[in-house]
């Protein structure tokens, strides 16, 4: 089964879009095998994982609720990834967005009831994520410190900071000692769009962000610069594009969007601050960005699929008594298959035995 890779003259556009589809199919096949090894009827298990969560209107709304933070984070990350800027700390920026936005919501309490409260909370969340993203950007541009490691370390710091606040100054005095803040006031909570579900205004904000992301990537000069720097840094250098500017823009935008995702979580479905606010949305968004081909429209589709993997994990946990970690296994598997299938974009597979016979 030996094979050889032959470089294609040009990237295959067919495989740019074919690879994600093939990767999803392979994940389904191997997921089925995994379920079979665990002693479950594979097709029934796959049905439970991928279809049953969407059997109700509530389930469909949940899908959108979970897809929103993924899409928000992934659009920002994709911008950077296009320019070879590796922000992998979206999870931390999301947490800090929740902290600053939630902090404003708590400070206003029930006193603030104007229309301006919610926009203020949202802006504060974006500012928090942006500030947290500025740290790796500054350390990278000023001191050449790896943005990968710095942004990741800051995720742990952000989680601890949130934990400190909800265990300490922001703990609800009437909360029976649980480490969580009081519930936000109504004016600081995102309105529900679909009665009987948890579908909130943040989902529309995510859609808006995807549109803005598309505009930045496709129609602005900075989007063009990022793309050129990612494809051929040398050409970008000759054109006078500044690498530092691209690092800054990538981190500011992705930080702000991740912060928005965080504040939407606490002002939306959660309604308060608690020690854990994200089941790893910021990390899963990395998969979403790649699966969506670093393109906003693709990211929209990919975020729905990844949101489904969270719902599927919950479904098999309830009905098949499997651990929630199944979600992570499926997500990791999908990313591996995607990276493997991506080889077909630039290379052709040639099986060696047939070459030998021909030669």
């Amino acid at each position: 089964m030996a094979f050889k890779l032959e470089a294609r003259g040009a990237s295959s556009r067919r495989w740019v879009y074919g690879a994600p589809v093939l990767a999803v199919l392979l994940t389904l096949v191997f997921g089925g095998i995994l379920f079979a090894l665990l002693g479950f009827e594979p097709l029934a298990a796959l049905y439970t994982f991928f279809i049953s969560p969407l059997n109700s209107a509530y389930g469909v709304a949940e899908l959108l609720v979970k897809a929103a933070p993924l899409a928000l984070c992934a659009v920002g990350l994709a911008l950077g990834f296009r320019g070879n800027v590796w922000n992998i700390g979206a999870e931390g920026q999301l947490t800090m967005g929740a902290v600053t936005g939630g902090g404003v919501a708590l400070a206003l309490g029930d006193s603030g009831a104007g229309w301006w409260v919610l926009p203020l909370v949202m802006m504060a969340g974006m500012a928090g994520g942006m500030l947290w993203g500025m740290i790796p950007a500054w350390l990278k541009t000023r001191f050449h410190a790896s943005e990968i490691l710095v942004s990741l370390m800051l995720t742990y710091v952000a989680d601890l900071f949130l934990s400190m606040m909800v265990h300490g100054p922001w703990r609800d005095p009437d909360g029976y000692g649980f480490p969580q803040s009081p519930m936000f006031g109504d004016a600081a909570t995102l309105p529900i769009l679909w009665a009987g579900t948890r579908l909130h205004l943040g989902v529309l904000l995510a859609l808006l962000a995807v549109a803005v992301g598309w505009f930045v990537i496709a129609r602005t000069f900075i989007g063009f610069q990022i793309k050129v720097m990612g494809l051929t840094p040398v050409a970008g250098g000759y054109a006078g594009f500044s690498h530092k500017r691209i690092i800054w823009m990538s981190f500011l935008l992705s930080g702000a969007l991740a912060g928005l995702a965080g504040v939407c979580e606490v002002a939306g479905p959660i309604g308060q601050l608690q020690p854990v606010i994200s089941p790893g949305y910021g990390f899963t968004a990395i998969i979403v960005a790649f699966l969506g081909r670093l393109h906003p429209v693709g990211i929209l589709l990919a975020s729905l699929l990844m949101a489904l993997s969270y719902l599927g994990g919950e479904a098999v946990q309830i009905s098949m008594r499997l651990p929630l970690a199944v979600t992570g296994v499926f997500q990791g598997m999908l990313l591996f298959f995607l990276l493997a299938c991506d080889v077909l974009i630039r290379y052709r597979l040639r099986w060696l035995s047939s070459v030998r016979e021909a030669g």
Partner: protein
Amino acid sequence: MDADTLALTGVVMAMMRAATPLIFAALGEVMTEKAGVLNLGVEGMMLMGAVAAFTAAVTTGSPVLGLVAAMLAGMLMALLFAFLTQTLMANQVATGLALTIFGVGLSAFVGRDMVGQTVEPLAAIQLGALSRIPVVGPLLFGHDPLVYVSLALAAAVWWFLRRSRSGLVVRAVGENPQAAHAIGYPVRLIRYAAILFGGAMSGLGGAYLSLVYTPMWIEGMTAGRGWIALALVVFASWRAERVLLGAYLFGGITIAQLHLQSSGGLAVPSQILTMLPYLATILVLVLISRDETRIRLNAPASLGKLFHPEG
């Protein structure tokens, strides 16, 4: 021996224990990166090593088999990475991230029945009278075997990369794979080997956590140590001997903050103290990366770049 000396000896020994998993993982990554490959999946490989070691030790009752299982698990993960990046030419950064995401999920999944179980920790070796010499005895002869293995490994990696012919070939592959290929060295095979070594060592680092350091399995128990190991490699300028220095520094910070937390003498929330190792990692990265020339001179020239024999 008075109480202070006794306490200090204990602190130094605790520091060495905290540093040992970092030493294993960072030495493995030094080898991988010296061959020109950046594997960001250390955290995932460590977690798989930790869960494999614990599962094997619980089911067989043998910690040694646990160590073997950890190395195999780390190598399997590394093989996946090597196949994707070397054979299928996938992006190393993306694949490494995938390896970590996958390892976090898979280790939690396969370890679901191991939560709450206990295992007999790997015992410290006892050399009779030698171990009972005050201060020097426990410091030199009172550790668990893996502490000595980690020290020997640092010496071995140093010797291999700096003094042996094969090490020279590995470095050549990392500096200029095209030239190494032209001379006739099997670049991809050498990189596969370096990646597998990295995987085995990360697995061992994980095993140290679940068999010795906190002898139990907890989801995500590495708590970022894989990433700290990656930072240590930069801090150490890709040199084995400096990995030791960096790891003991981090071990010291870890133990210091744990002591401050348990003594409660400082009026600082525990979370601030727990942040210290992560903040120290950032600080160290900044200090070492500030001098760009130094990094460029020390980092393997082809680090993270794809290599295809036919261009």
